[in-house]
């Protein structure tokens, strides 16, 4: 019961936070002169100055800011975020188009990043200052220091360039025809999931095949931080007195590592894993560019370059929601792992 209360309270708080985010986003938008903000509502390339003036008055772009804010909020609440130039569609349509591509990769990569990071971090701590530890350290340094674009291109060059496997893109041209045909029903927009739901395993494997290289790229780049954190917190846990108690009880090394130490060491790692997930949701610009995946990151980057204000505003709001939600989930997991943390 207290957990439910806590979640409800946090969700109410989330609304407050998101309200703050909308205020911030809106004030950023208000910096742009009214003439440019017309673009949010109208998509004509060429407009005469008199038409422009008419439009500005029509949409009330010179009204006091609070009134404009309320008007904008009313639209947002109705699900109308304006028109995105870069997606050449309404923002919500663009989101439906780009988001599943990102989500698919994030959902596949994040668990793997977490597993690899935690596993290698624990191995490093258990075999401290031995060869396994040094190997994981090298892995971490490589992951830390290699720029995304370089590693991504290198992977693409090696696998696609030399061996001809793991092509970029989300799906092969043949499968694309199937996906866009009438009998393939788009349930979720996630290609792999849709393929299963349509019982088209060939398409599922094809989509998964295209996901492998970007996933490897993300694992190499992102598990390093988690790994190092896990290693140090594991070492700290292993130095605690309760490890001696467990040993004196007759527990084997395995039980000591995986039951007594790991749970204590996981607490800081959970935070980082949560932040990592949230960051990946919006921040895979380079990975998506290199592997030609039309995702949120790519859209955001293009929107920023072309001053596609509605798209940017929407994505800021979206990422705000993601971060707040992930934080809530992290807090709940915290309380589950560590009984000293009380929710509510």
């Amino acid at each position, binding site marked *: 019961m207290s957990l439910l209360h806590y979640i409800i309270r946090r969700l109410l708080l989330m609304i407050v936070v998101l309200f703050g985010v909308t205020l911030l986003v809106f004030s950023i938008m208000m910096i742009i002169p009214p003439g440019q903000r017309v673009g949010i509502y109208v998509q004509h390339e060429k407009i005469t100055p008199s038409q422009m003036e008419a439009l500005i008055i029509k949409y009330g772009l010179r009204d006091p800011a609070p009134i404009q804010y309320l008007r904008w909020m009313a639209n947002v609440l109705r699900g109308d975020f304006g028109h995105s130039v870069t997606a050449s569609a309404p923002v919500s349509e663009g989101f439906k188009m780009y988001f599943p591509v990102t989500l698919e990769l994030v959902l596949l990569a994040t668990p793997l990043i977490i597993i690899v990071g935690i596993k290698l971090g624990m191995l490093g701590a258990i075999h401290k200052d031995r060869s396994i530890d040094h190997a994981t350290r090298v892995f971490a340094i490589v992951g830390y220091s290699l720029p995304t674009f370089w590693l991504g291109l290198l992977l693409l060059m090696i696998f696609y360039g030399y061996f001809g496997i793991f092509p970029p893109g989300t799906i092969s041209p043949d499968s694309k025809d199937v996906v866009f045909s009438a009998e393939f029903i788009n349930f979720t927009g996630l290609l792999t999931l849709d393929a299963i739901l349509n019982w088209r395993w060939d398409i599922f494997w094809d989509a998964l095949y295209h996901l492998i290289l970007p996933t490897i790229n993300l694992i190499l780049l992102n598990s390093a931080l988690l790994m190092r954190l896990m290693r140090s917190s594991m070492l700290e846990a292993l130095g605690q*007195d309760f490890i001696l*108690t467990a040993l004196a*009880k*007759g527990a084997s090394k395995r039980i000591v590592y995986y039951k007594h130490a790991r749970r204590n060491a996981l607490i800081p790692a959970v935070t980082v894993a949560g932040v990592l997930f949230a960051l990946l949701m919006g921040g895979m610009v380079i990975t998506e560019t290199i592997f030609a995946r039309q995702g949120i990151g790519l859209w955001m980057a293009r929107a920023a370059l072309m001053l596609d204000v509605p798209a940017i505003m929407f994505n800021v709001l979206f990422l705000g929601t993601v971060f707040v939600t992930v934080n809530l989930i992290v807090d709940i997991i915290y309380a589950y792992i560590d009984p000293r943390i009380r929710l509510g």
Partner: protein
Amino acid sequence: MEKLIETEDLYTNFFTFEGVVRALNGVSVVVNQGETYGLVGESGCGKSVTVRSMMRIVQEPGKIVGGKILLFLSSEDRQKGIDIIKRSEAFMESIRGDDISMIFQEASTSLNPVLSIRDQVGESFLLHRRGELLEETLKQLADELKSNGFPLAMAWKGFQRWLFRRELESLRRYEKHVKEIDRELYELEEKTDPRSTRRKSSLNARRDRLSEHDFLVSAVKKSPFLERYYKKIHKIVENKIIELLKSLGVPNPANVLKSYPHELSGGMQQRIVIAIALACNPTLLIADEPTSNLDVTIQAQIIELIKMLKENIITSVLFITHDLGLVAEVCERVTVMYAGDTCETTSVKELFKNPLHPYTKGLLSSVPRIEQVEKLHTIPGTVPNLINPPAGCRFHPRCPSAMKICAERKPPMVEYKEGHTVSCHLYPGEEV
């Protein structure tokens, strides 16, 4: 009196970046069956390292580098004892918590903060009493199967019984193997020819590798979704814990069971630590300064508790403390340690009446007394750095009666009179 555990010339070093810390410099202590034995000394004199070496839980970068630790547990190995330094890790795991267990200085940090009391106390039972637990569960299941019930529930119970039986069988098989290996190792104990040595190391390695689990049982054990399958065992364990906590004077044990260490008071935490140690009725309880972080009233309670346990449950207690008052209160025989050396070993009465070693004398005169008016006596100087310990007797730089030979040669342990041994050049004699 019969010996229970004995260390012979134990050397334990810590290999740190600054250098090798020689924490134990040939420590020899004997704990007899049925006695309360005290280990006294300043902080950092190697008391804790001695007992941790005895259990072989010295943590990195520490290592036992020399000496013997002889354990005389069952009647069959009373004659020569088992040298546990040479035994496998798996053997030690079966000894720790079952025959020898330990309670620690700071109860608040020696309990795992993220595991419930039930998990932590129950672990001892689950590690060492699994066979008995399985048998009890099987008995329960057999009773339940006799009565009528839903066919599906009955089928589930039948399946459980089948799997528990399978687990029990594999456990018994494992125990039989282990017993065979241990017997052979015991017979080879004192042989040093190359063939026996090889055989010993291969047996030790085999004991480490040996595993009780058959494939199906370990699959069930490791799968987190099948936790419910073990509910019956956990229920039995719970009852055992409640009984144990009750006997230790924990009020409302059923609630304490579900709580976490941070929710308990210091005295209660120490009781839980004691409960963990006592779960399997150990022969030897090692108490590593169990009261030094408690306030005085709780201290008295815990001491009373340990005394009560000594009378009723445990055979021997090895009590570590720096408090001479406690020694007088609790112990029968005492060893005084200084900087990794054993200074003198004697009965408590003798120690206070007739201290021999200059360090013991210094310690005793440093105890504040109520009738004392002049300044409190102190031993000049400080505890030496054990990376470069003084040569010869480690106490000689601070010793009021130091002689030339003290800096040159480590004094042998001599028997001054029966039951009173001392290691000091002031008392020449035959080494024992």
